[in-house]
């Protein structure tokens, strides 16, 4: 396309010669202010290159005269944060769990720390509200597999459950079915027995058959009356709280396979004072013991 510049009649301005379906473009100069802003930004860019990190090279980059570094800035802020938290952390370290909970100010601080740490680390399994899920304990009610006192909670968080670490909470329910320790019909009978323990209606004949079986196989951990034993982490079978569910099918499956969940040990990942704050947070927001 030949570029024929012509003068527009209406405005007296030259056209660029471009034409689209009869529409022609006027060749107006750039607005002066725009041009100056543009020149200004070029100058700014040059100044920026000199002062700030800008150009990549083969072995690094130009550092700039101001020595700006985001990495250094982040570590400086982290250090500042440590210092800022220092006083609260020191108080948490020295005070006993009971004192932390009783002191309104320390308690408020522990609640804040605990809530945020809980959200980051515990909520994945126990839920953001702490009510747990199937196989993950509800931390808001007053049922505690491993004890609900402040020290118990602190210990469980520190060492975990079946975490494989030293001092971990450990219980191993036998897989009565899978390991063929009991016959399927015996497991059926035991299921009825457990249902009866929790106060529901069950097959009377089956309960009768299972009674000696329960005393022989289960009562060592779950206690003769079914109330369980906190020391070995054996749950109370008489209450309305069920870790894996209350249905017969679930109870039967549990007797068959003897499932047990794993909770990691948090020592080493969380500082002792953080674990203390977390313990107080969980204890205070639960139906405490």
């Amino acid at each position, binding site marked *: 396309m030949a570029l024929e510049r012509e003068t527009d009649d209406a405005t007296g301005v030259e056209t660029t010669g471009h034409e689209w379906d009869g529409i022609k473009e006027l060749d107006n100069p750039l607005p002066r202010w725009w041009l100056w802003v543009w020149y200004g930004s070029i100058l700014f860019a040059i100044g920026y290159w000199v002062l700030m990190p800008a150009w990549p090279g083969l072995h690094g980059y130009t550092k700039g005269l101001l020595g700006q570094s985001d990495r250094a800035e982040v570590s400086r802020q982290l250090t500042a944060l440590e210092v800022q938290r220092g006083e609260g952390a020191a108080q948490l370290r020295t005070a006993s769990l009971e004192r932390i*909970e*009783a002191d309104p100010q320390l*308690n408020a601080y522990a*609640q804040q720390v605990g809530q945020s740490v809980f959200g980051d680390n515990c909520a994945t399994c126990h*839920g*953001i*509200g*702490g*009510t747990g899920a199937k196989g993950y304990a*509800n931390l*808001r*009610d*007053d*049922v505690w597999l491993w004890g609900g006192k402040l020290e118990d909670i602190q210990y469980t968080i520190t060492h975990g459950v079946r975490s494989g670490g030293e001092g971990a909470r450990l219980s191993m329910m036998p897989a009565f079915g899978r390991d063929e320790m009991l016959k399927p019909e015996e497991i059926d009978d035991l299921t009825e027995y457990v249902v009866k323990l929790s106060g529901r209606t069950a097959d009377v004949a089956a309960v009768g058959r299972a009674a000696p079986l329960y005393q022989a196989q289960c009562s060592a951990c779950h206690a003769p009356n079914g109330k369980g034993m906190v020391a070995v982490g054996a749950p*109370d079978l008489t*209450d*309305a*709280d*069920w870790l894996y569910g*209350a249905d017969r099918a679930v109870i039967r499956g549990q007797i068959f396979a003897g499932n047990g969940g794993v909770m990691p040990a948090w020592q080493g990942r969380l500082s002792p004072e953080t674990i203390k704050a977390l313990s*107080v947070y969980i*204890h*205070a*927001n639960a*139906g*405490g013991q």
Partner: protein
Amino acid sequence: MPTVIDNTRPKSDGRSAVSAAARAKGKDIKGRLYKPRQPIYPKLVHGKWRAVKWAMLIATLAVYYITPWVRWTRPEGFPQQAALVDFTGRRFYFFDIQLWPQEVYIFTGLLVMAALALFLVTALFGRLWCGYACPQTVWTDLYIVVERLFEGDRNARMRLDAAPLSLDKVWRKTGKHLAWLGIAFGTGGAWIFYFHDAPTLIRTFWTGDAPMTAYVSCLLLTGATYVFAGWMREQVCTYMCPWPRIQGAMLDEHSLQVTYLAYRGEARGPHKKGQSWEGRGDCIDCHQCVVVCPMGIDIRDGAQLECINCGLCVDACDEVMVKINRPTGLIGYDSDHAVAARGQGGKAAYRPIRARTIYYTLALCVVGGLTLWSLVTRPKADLNVIRDRNPIFVRMHDGAVRDGYTLKIGNRGFEARRFEIAFEGVAGARLSQPGQPGHPGQPVSVLVPADQVVPVRVFVTAPATAALADSVPGRFIIRSGDLRAEAKTVFLSGAANPR
């Protein structure tokens, strides 16, 4: 039927284009983004309206500069400044009134009242606000005083601007701008005292310890004052301010406005001493009304958007009328209706009581009453309840159900108070705080420091025997002495989610 008011006459051109507005209209503005400003050199005038304007200038500036320095006794630990907007503490203090951010509706009420009062005044007397009380008018007036001090009155200023650069011109111009900047700095400087303790800030401002916001606000207002009152002046009113565009809706033929009595003034023309006044108007075309106008208009062209109703042309014209021995009041505050009636030889009637003035007054009374009522009856203690949303309820091993709530208790008083919290709605419910078991029927008590909001977490536990509906309405009540506040909430029993 609304009356369309159009008193504008075709503008005279050529020789008599004295007003800046008329001159600007003749300019070739092709190829420019903005209409060029024609400089206006308002002449000093004496008279009663000028006197009122001086009084308003002094009064408004005095209020502006003195208010932040008024001290007021409040309890230890609270600001001792009568008027203070404390952004950091999120409080507003005005003598015995102390407002929290959530009470901003009182300001809304005040602003609505201000708008309605403006409507009412405009419907009655025209743009009195613009002419006498608007900061733009007041500061422009002040700046013109300074200008006159350095450069002389209208003619001297025009000569100076036309004169080539000289030492005299340089020092006069420099002096003027320095004085303007000084006033601007004083304006911005006074503004920041409303937001911080004034006696402290006036020290820290110079030692560099004042908050950054104080410096930035001061700088911004200094710049705005200098530019608005020094350079832009009438352009702010004509181009930036929305009010001149809205006022047309408030004015009608009974509103008082600065009006040129055309029936008396026309036909205008020069008049020599001793000549007869027969067959001609009283206007001798001396242009005194034009040269004193700070807006640069010719009032004889009729009601105009630019006119701020300041009445300086009234004073100027009266002065001339006295000199030539004609009755004063050729230009005056008058209503279109009255002017028209007198023009036809009838009797002028003024009607300040009209439908719109009655409506504005009524609306003003209603909004004013509501605002005052809400100010007087506002609570001294606040209670807000935030229900836990996760979990919405917790079932205990024995079937008891526990709901969690966060109560925000606000103590608006100047002393710390101990509040007793009670929950009503669920029989046999137990109120407790995290880590503390609590006892059935026992209230929980918390200490709330003066002038603070404290979040309090509480649990309500309903016994397993309660047999509740899924959602039970309940309420929290806080009490401290004779202070009492309550907030509704619900207790969710989980009945719809059996285990």
